[in-house]
């Protein structure tokens, strides 16, 4: 019993760390976008060229989005229409479970095809059409990894919601939010 509880706590820490790591990796890619765009500008002013810079910036854009999906869900940044949830009052829990379950299924669908699409880019040897000549499966790994992480994150929150009645989503810094119920 105690060992099971300890195992659960370790799993909890691992998952939380994974979501945060996704966010941090995404932040790294946002910094990379800034770096690439500045490099491209400086190169142009000085009569040079950074081959494929705008393509790489595009890949970084995708990575900055996909890697952060799970982190954004975990911290309550993704939005939804809360009208019905609020109206349901104490029956709210069932609607929460429904929404989380639909989210989990859709995210799993998303992840399945993201992995498949990336696999096929590799299998077909798809190469980007720009100056960069990147094999497309490499940047698409961010899509595969990010959507899988999002799906895991949804199932994690769904299980927590069913088991404990609390989905565990913790909204970041509410200091500038208005008082009263959200």
């Amino acid at each position: 019993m105690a060992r099971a509880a300890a195992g659960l706590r370790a799993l909890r820490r691992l998952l939380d760390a994974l979501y945060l790591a996704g966010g941090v990796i995404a932040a790294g890619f946002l910094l990379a976008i800034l770096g690439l765009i500045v490099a491209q500008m400086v190169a142009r002013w000085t009569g040079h060229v950074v081959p494929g810079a705008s393509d790489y910036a595009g890949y970084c854009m995708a990575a900055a989005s996909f890697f952060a999906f799970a982190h954004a869900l975990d911290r309550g940044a993704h939005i939804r229409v809360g009208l019905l949830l609020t109206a349901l009052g104490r029956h709210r829990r069932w609607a929460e479970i429904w929404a989380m379950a639909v989210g989990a299924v859709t995210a799993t669908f998303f992840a399945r095809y993201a992995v498949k699409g990336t696999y096929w880019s590799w299998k077909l040897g798809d190469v980007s059409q720009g100056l960069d000549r990147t094999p497309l499966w490499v940047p698409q790994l961010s899509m595969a990894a990010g959507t899988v992480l999002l799906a895991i994150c949804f199932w994690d929150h769904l299980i927590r919601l069913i088991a404990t009645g609390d989905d565990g989503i913790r909204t970041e810094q509410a200091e500038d939010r208005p008082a009263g119920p959200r």
Partner: protein
Amino acid sequence: ETWDMPMAYAASNFHSEVGAEFARCVGEATGGALEIVTHPSGALFGGAEIKRAVQTGQANIGERLLSAHENENPLFGVDSIPFLVSSFDEHERLWAIAEPHVAAALEEDNLHYLYSVPWPPQGLYVNKPVETVEDLKGVKFRSYSAATARMAELTRMVPVQVEAAELSQALATGVAESFISSGATGYDRKVWEHLSHFYEVDAWLPRNAVFANLDAWTGLDEATRSAVGDCAAKAQAEGLERSKAYTAFTVEGLKEGGMTVGRAPEGLVVGLKAIGETMTGEWLDRAGDEGRAIVEAYRQGQ
């Protein structure tokens, strides 16, 4: 059966109009057994995705600028070797030799080649009069592909990478001062608002190709396939005429807009041809025996 046909260019572009006519032809010739619905303006898939989408059956048929896929197979860029051909007629001669090779390359990618139509010849837009390649030195030149970047290098222009969506703004603010494209692009984008000269250097004539998913194609019965093939042949002939007519029309339009339009001066032509030699050599290195065979067959016929 209904086939959705993603196309990258606007509905009023002549390629899209030829495509729409082809779709109509197929509908009539097959008595409605096969209906093709065109989706211009990248409404289903953007240009960059169309080949992959048709390859994997996400759409059964589509149109794409073939040379954009040169990174995958140098043969797809056979229509875009700079200064190898310099007129519609020469280009058609080259294409007659290359077409079966390209069709075979497409078949390897699970695509059945139907027809293709050339864009008007690519000319040089620049913000000042130019006599020789020397005059181009230091001009900010829009590069958007490996070939255009290499060309900037060889002409000692300053390459600036500008995406199509930002071309007008880049010209307006002086980020770019020169680029290579067809008279059609300049006419559509009203380039005379920013640049003064258009030199008809006929650098190359890229083609838009229409292809079908191979599995969907072999799934059609014999009669339908032959009807589609007839319509494709008609579209290719019709498209070539439209392209020629449109070239004359847009060049006139550039003049009316206030640009100085004309054939490139002798000095510029000689310099560009030399650069073309270099770049043809480089393409042959990449394209291997098959590419070499095509170019040699073309040169022998000259």
